[in-house]
C-alpha cells in the first residue's frame, strides 16, 4: 500500500475568510479550538461529518479542503 497521508488547507481557507479564528471555526463545526489546531497541523483526521461541515463553512467542495497525497508530495 502506498504511503499516503491526509493534508488540508484549513489554515489558508480561514485566512481567506476574513482571518477567521480557530475558536470561531471550532464553534461553527462543533469542536474545540484545540481540535481545529490539531486538524491544521495534521495531528488529527476529522470524521467525514466534520470534514463536510468545514467545507460547508467555507463554501467549497470537500476536496478543496482535504487532499489525499503521497507523503513526499507538498
Amino acid at each position: 500500500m502506498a504511503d499516503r497521508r491526509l493534508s488540508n488547507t484549513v489554515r489558508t481557507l480561514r485566512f481567506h475568510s476574513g482571518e477567521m479564528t480557530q475558536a470561531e471555526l471550532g464553534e461553527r463545526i462543533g469542536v474545540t479550538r484545540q481540535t481545529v489546531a490539531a486538524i491544521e497541523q495534521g495531528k488529527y483526521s476529522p470524521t467525514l461529518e466534520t470534514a463536510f461541515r468545514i467545507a460547508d463553512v467555507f463554501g467549497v467542495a470537500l476536496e478543496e479542503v482535504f487532499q489525499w497525497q503521497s507523503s513526499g508530495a507538498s
Partner: protein
Amino acid sequence: MAFREKIAWLTLATMLIAYGAYFAVIGPAADFGQGRMVDIIWSFGLVAAAQAVAMIVGAVVLAVLARREAQAPADERDRSIARRGASIGYYVLICGMILVGVVMPFSSPPWKIVNAALAVIVVAEAVHQATILLSYRRGWHG
C-alpha cells in the same frame, strides 16, 4: 493545551505520586499487610483517598482557570482519544488480572495477591492516562 489533556496530566501526576508513595514507602513500611491484611485497607485506602482529594482540588482549580472549556462537552477528538486510552488500558488490566487471579493463587500468599491486584489496577490506569496524553501530544488518526 486542551482541558481534557490537562485533566489527564493531573490524573497521571497525582497517581504516580500517591501510588508511588504506597508501593515505594508506605507499603514496605507496613510490610504490605503481610502481618495483618487490614493494614492494606488503611495504607492503600488512605493513599487512594488522598489521591482522590488531590484530583478533585486540581480539577476544580483547572475548571475555574478555564471555565468555558471545562463547561464545553467533549468533542469527537476527545471522545476518540478517550476510547483509545480505555481500550489499551483494558488490555493491560485483563493481562494483569489473569496473572493475579489465575497464576498467583498457586504460588503466592493472599497479601501478595491483593497488592499485586492493586498494582495491576494502578498500572492499567496509568497506561490509560499515558495513552490519552500521547494521543493529544503526538496526534491521533483513529
